[in-house]
């Protein structure tokens, strides 16, 4: 398909990197990413005309990951009230990851969606179920918390996974 394969090769690792934040194992993360690309390919004739087709597939991947996670969490009363409470729960391999994990659930989710998935605030808000202004507040407070946590740690240099 014209242009799709190129986008896939370029974007697939990124999307997997994003979905890893929402899944408990890498295999599941790749499954979700591929699900998103399946949907992208089915709608490729339309999405390819978008300014950023990669943003579309990232958002779809996040939604699919959250959808699957919420399904698994169904029945848990506490998490039902906070659907993204445990959204970023993978083992942290770096100081940054550890710092992100330490954020409150909504702030963690906002950071992952906005920075790692590169989604605009409106999409972040939609994904976590809040208003854009609230999403901005989450991001602002997350940055404050991360700054406090990381600047106190002199060894924060390795940002690779």
């Amino acid at each position, binding site marked *: *398909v014209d242009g799709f*394969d190129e986008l*896939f*090769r370029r974007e*697939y*690792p*990124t999307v*997997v*990197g994003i979905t*890893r934040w929402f899944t408990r194992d890498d295999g599941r993360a*790749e499954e979700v*990413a*591929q699900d998103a*690309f*399946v949907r992208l*390919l*089915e709608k490729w004739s339309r999405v390819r005309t978008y300014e950023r087709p990669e943003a579309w597939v990232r958002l779809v991947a996040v939604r699919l990951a959250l959808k699957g996670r919420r399904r698994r969490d169904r029945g848990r009363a506490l998490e039902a009230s906070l659907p993204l409470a445990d959204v970023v729960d993978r083992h942290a391999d*770096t100081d*940054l990851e550890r710092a992100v994990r330490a954020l409150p659930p909504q702030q963690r989710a906002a*950071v992952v969606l906005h*920075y*790692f998935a*590169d989604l605009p605030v409106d999409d972040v808000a939609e994904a976590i179920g809040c208003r854009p202004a609230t999403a901005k507040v989450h991001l602002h407070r997350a*940055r404050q918390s*991360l*700054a406090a946590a*990381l600047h106190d740690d002199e060894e*924060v240099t390795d*940002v*690779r*996974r």
Partner: protein
Amino acid sequence: MSVDELLRTYASSVPALDPDAPLRSVHHRVRRRRLVRRGIAATAVVLALVAASAAAVRPHHDARVTSNETGQAVTLDLPAGYAEASDRRVAPDSPLAGVDGNVLVLYTGADDRSVLVVSRPHPFGAVDRRFTTNATVQGVPAAVYTLAQPGRVWIPDLHGLEITVDAQGLTTEADLRALADSLREQDGHAVLGDYPIWADRVLTDGPHPVDVGEQTRRQVVFRSAGRHLVLDVTSGRSSTVVARWRDGGRAVDGLGDGDATYLERDGERRVGWEQGEQSFALRTDDPAIGDDELVAIARSVRVSG
């Protein structure tokens, strides 16, 4: 480095993954999903046609209308019953002119439109010889069965049998409704068996004024043309009658335009008419032969090509 820069730098680092295998997987899954959707869509179209057609007919009868995928033909599963023609005429511009085949033609009467039913390869007794030449309809070996006049015909053969109605200009939805409307399931008299022989009349109630002088004679009259009637006298119920034939000579006979044909026990006898529309009668003047038996004999009559 600010937190914002740190996060964006982190986001730019992606896991090292070979995309080729997952790319092939994505293409494969999309192809499969499309195939499934096409199958579902095709099925849905067929089901919709079936539902729409069946809904059009079912209020009247249990006729089940199905359709093939191309919509070029409609298949009717007609219940056993009487087909009742309301008009004997053939429209001057009827496409049936010259059409022949294994078909049952019923006339709606209202607008002289015809319903052409293509049946399985099975010769029908034909009333109207205009439609009895050897031919096929849509590749089906065919003989035409029409009603020479408004009346009824028992068509038990159609029960459970898929009847293809030519939908290419010969029939309309109204025709299908008319066909369904023409079916009248009626138990009781004038049921002449498992073959499409038109019962002119069944007189089982004593004296009658028609063509015989004996007041006690009863008869079942058939009409046919250009075909042979095979009188099967091997059935158990007819054996009594057959025995009487043998013993009593002409207690029961078949008549074709006045020519008597004698039936023999334990065998078949062909009664042939080669020309035009004629009548055939099974009759008896033996009071020991009940009406039911006489009808049973009539039911044994088959039509042979």
